[in-house]
């Protein structure tokens, strides 16, 4: 199905941009007239994916975070969050709830939150070259056509 609207946003992996990315995705998703609850789910899932780029992908510096989003006439949004950071060695383990490689205060629940709030979550990763997280959710009522 052809997207009715698409956008591409590139930001730096600075923690201040976590909130900026949330604002952007909310403004874009608003075009499908989502409920406040659905919008809240999307910005939370997006926040997890972007935060992972800041905290994990580029843990020893900063790099670019590539966010694309597409709105479909059947009321779906598809969001991709891509980094060219360190990648994930063991994807299955990484996606287990409470698993984290970070010291300190990470809960290890980023992927679990994405999965519980979105309809579909796909993660592709290659150690040393980066990670792409795809988030999908039906957020609006079906339009004609």
């Amino acid at each position: 199905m052809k997207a009715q609207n698409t956008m591409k946003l590139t930001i730096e992996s600075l923690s201040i941009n976590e909130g900026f990315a949330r604002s952007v995705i909310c403004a874009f998703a608003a075009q499908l007239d989502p409920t406040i609850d659905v919008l809240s789910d999307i910005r939370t899932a997006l926040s997890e994916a972007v935060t992972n780029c800041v905290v994990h992908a580029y843990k020893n510096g900063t790099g670019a975070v590539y966010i694309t989003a597409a709105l479909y006439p059947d009321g779906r949004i598809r969001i991709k969050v891509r980094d060219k950071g360190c990648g994930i060695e063991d994807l299955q383990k990484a996606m287990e709830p409470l698993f984290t490689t970070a010291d300190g205060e990470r809960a290890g629940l980023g992927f679990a939150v994405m999965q519980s709030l979105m309809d579909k979550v796909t993660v592709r990763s290659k150690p040393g070259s980066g990670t792409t997280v795809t988030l999908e959710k039906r957020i609006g009522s079906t339009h004609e056509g």
Partner: protein
Amino acid sequence: MPVTINTAPGSLTAVLVGDLDHHSAKPIRERIDAAIAEHRPTELVLDFGGITFMDSSGIGLVMGRYRLMEELGGKVVVDNAPTTIKKVMRLSGIDKLATINYGGADK
């Protein structure tokens, strides 16, 4: 993100306002932990009434404070949590360790 600390005998309340994410979590944590070290309360109340957003970084914050209060033989209560963060709270199981009272801003 502004944090206000209020103390009463044995109890310490941290009032949070704004988005609770990875970006804001660190300064909040430092403020709260300094206050805990100073007052050594037996109850830590996190007032989430002014919280406009929270993701799993917020869970990390609550979890970390839970561990700290456990060491002191105390407990953690989250007050006025907005219902929008209920899903994330439930999923984490943190509601089995701390008392979570809903009824915040966007209820």
